[in-house]
């Protein structure tokens, strides 16, 4: 029992009740037989816990209440910690599966290289500057395109939301244009806007503009009519209506659109880089593929995923900051 008390002093509540099982798992993973592992449970005295708890004194019961309170306080924190670790766990699981596929030789190593060789290539490409150079180009195309696309999309969305006839006029054209896969007309854009960064930015703008516009329209239309009436009664100007009512009310939906747009922007940039192989992460992947450098292809693909994830996280932080009033219950 002393061991158990020591445990509770040193480790978070909740862990001590399960620690004999954890010890058994550790023993098993370390190659110790199940029987030996079971002995460790006996040694820990864990099996006595139910009997001992029946003879608890009032002092112990008070301590139990204290522990319960602590447990209630710790549990959400523990849960939060686990949730924070979940993405790392997912990555770990993927790497383990990847290594398993490599070790089992499901595919030849030139089709699926080992995680270690990809890591080695990653370090090399960072050291010689190739990765950062191409990353900076893709980032530039993505951010400029995202900025212009969001500006155009939200402006047009605002106009359409306020002038419904425009929606009737433009929607067939916009939907038809948007439902055409970008890869189909990307070569034409390269032809019209050149082989440099401009054509890729145009592709990003086209991809980003639609979800932004649709979310702007949806966000503005979700503003309660009652509130609009209040603003009218108070003789609010158009600018006041926009800044004090429409923008705050539509912000949540707009930010959801921005999240989608941020990830789509990366896709747009890469589509352009694949069509016109020049510079940028998409081009790096295409050239590496052409040189049969599969680890570098993996590095490019992983970098693109990280870029998209970073942009998504950035917008999530922006959302967290801009919508902080919601967490305090203000409307």
């Amino acid at each position: 029992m002393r061991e158990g008390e020591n445990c509770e002093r040193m480790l978070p509540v909740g862990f001590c009740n399960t620690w004999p099982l954890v010890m058994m798992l550790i023993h098993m993973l370390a190659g110790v037989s199940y029987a030996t592992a079971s002995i460790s449970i006996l040694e820990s005295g864990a099996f006595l816990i139910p009997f001992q708890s029946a003879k608890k004194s009032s002092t112990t019961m008070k301590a139990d209440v204290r522990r319960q309170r602590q447990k209630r306080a710790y549990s959400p924190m523990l849960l939060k910690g686990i949730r924070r670790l979940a993405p790392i766990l997912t990555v770990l699981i993927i790497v383990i599966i990847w290594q398993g596929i490599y070790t089992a030789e499901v595919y030849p190593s030139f089709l699926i290289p080992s995680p270690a060789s990809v890591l080695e290539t990653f370090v090399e490409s960072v050291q010689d500057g190739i990765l950062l150079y191409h990353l900076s180009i893709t980032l530039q195309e993505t951010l400029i395109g995202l900025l212009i696309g969001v500006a155009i999309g939200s402006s047009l969305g605002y106009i359409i939301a306020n002038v419904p006839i425009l929606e009737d006029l433009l929607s067939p054209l916009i939907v038809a244009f948007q439902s055409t896969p970008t890869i189909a007309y990307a070569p034409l854009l390269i032809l019209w806007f050149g082989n440099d960064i401009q054509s890729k930015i145009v592709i990003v703008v086209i991809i980003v503009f639609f979800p932004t516009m649709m979310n702007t329209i949806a966000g503005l239309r979700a503003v309660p009519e009652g509130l609009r009436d209040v603003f009218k009664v108070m003789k609010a100007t158009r600018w006041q209506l926009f800044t004090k009512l429409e923008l705050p009310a539509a912000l949540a939906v707009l930010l959801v659109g921005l999240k989608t747009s941020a990830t789509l922007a990366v896709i747009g940039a890469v589509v352009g880089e694949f069509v016109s192989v020049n510079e940028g992460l998409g081009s790096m992947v295409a050239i590496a593929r052409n040189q049969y450098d599969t680890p570098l292809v993996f590095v490019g693909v992983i970098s693109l995923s990280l870029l998209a994830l970073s942009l998504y996280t950035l917008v999530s932080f922006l959302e967290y900051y801009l919508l902080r009033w919601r967490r305090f219950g203000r409307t």
Partner: protein
Amino acid sequence: MIKRIVIVLLFSVVVYGVSIAQDDLEDERFLLTFVPNIQFSPLYVAIEQGYAEDAGYNLTIEYLNEPDVVDLVAAGQANFGMVSGEQVITAVSRQRPIVYVYEWFQQYPVGVVLDAASDITQVSDLAGKRIGLPGRFGASYSGLTTLLTANDMSERDVELQEIGYVAPDVFCTGGAVDAVVVYLNNEPLQIQLRADAGDCADVESVRVFPVAESTDLVANGIITSTELLERDPNHVSAIVMAFDHGLRDVINNPARAYLLSEAYVEGLPLSDELREALNTLADEQDAFLADQPTREDIIASRSAMLETLQSTIADPAELIQFQVLLASINLWDADQLGYSDMASWEAMQTTLIELGSLDDAIDLEGIFTNQFVDETD
């Protein structure tokens, strides 16, 4: 009534027999790059004329990117593919177990095209000029580097502009570049067609500097996996022979090859007028071939074919794909089809090392074989 039953029974037996015969055929995939195009007519002819079936294979064609073709063949997911020689060296240096078994293009198909009226009359005149190319990769880049090196120049002596795959558009816009790196069997014809129509800035005619005139580089050919080559060389031989047969047919009678390719190349220009003219030419060529003409006579007959068509067909755009085929044949035709020599492999390897695509020289002995070429002659 009995007569009818007998006819139906006989018909059933024949149909069953045919289906049994087809079942005996082994399915085989042949991987090509690019898209369906008249340039792949030797394979189309090999299928249409039944050469693959005669060898016991039901051949189907798929179109992929070059690296995908190499990797699928290397991984044993397909047995045959058509890729360029530089891809073979690069892939083998990266542990892809493939072997090059038949050199289809006897001349490297890349060259530099420029305005014939410009002051650039030889390769050395390209110094300081703006040269457009798809990008710093692939056959175009390798070809240009080789051409410059062979003329004691390097990339630093010219101004390279990466223009993607729109060389005719950029060149004909005028002023953007002084020359473009192209595939000789296609773009020069497209540019000349525009020039003839007065739709290519001030250009009236073009001049071409073929890489092959400076250095013999190994070009496109058939690859297979080392595993298949060791395990079943007869299988490899059968497919190579079928392709070789198709290639010889195309070289000897391009009019027939063009007609046979119709089913494979969507949008291939073939008006009723052109079809009729080609049919007539194809029949005449068959009769001509029956007299066992020399290679020189056959070359002359191809030129005569084009002249006849040009005098018959009013719209030059309708003949452009036939001209592409004839230009391709000039790059394929040789005394010994399919043969590749060590010198061209070494030249290609030197270029790849110079470009930085290859770190060190690899052993070129096992990378190609002429064992099946000898069988075809």
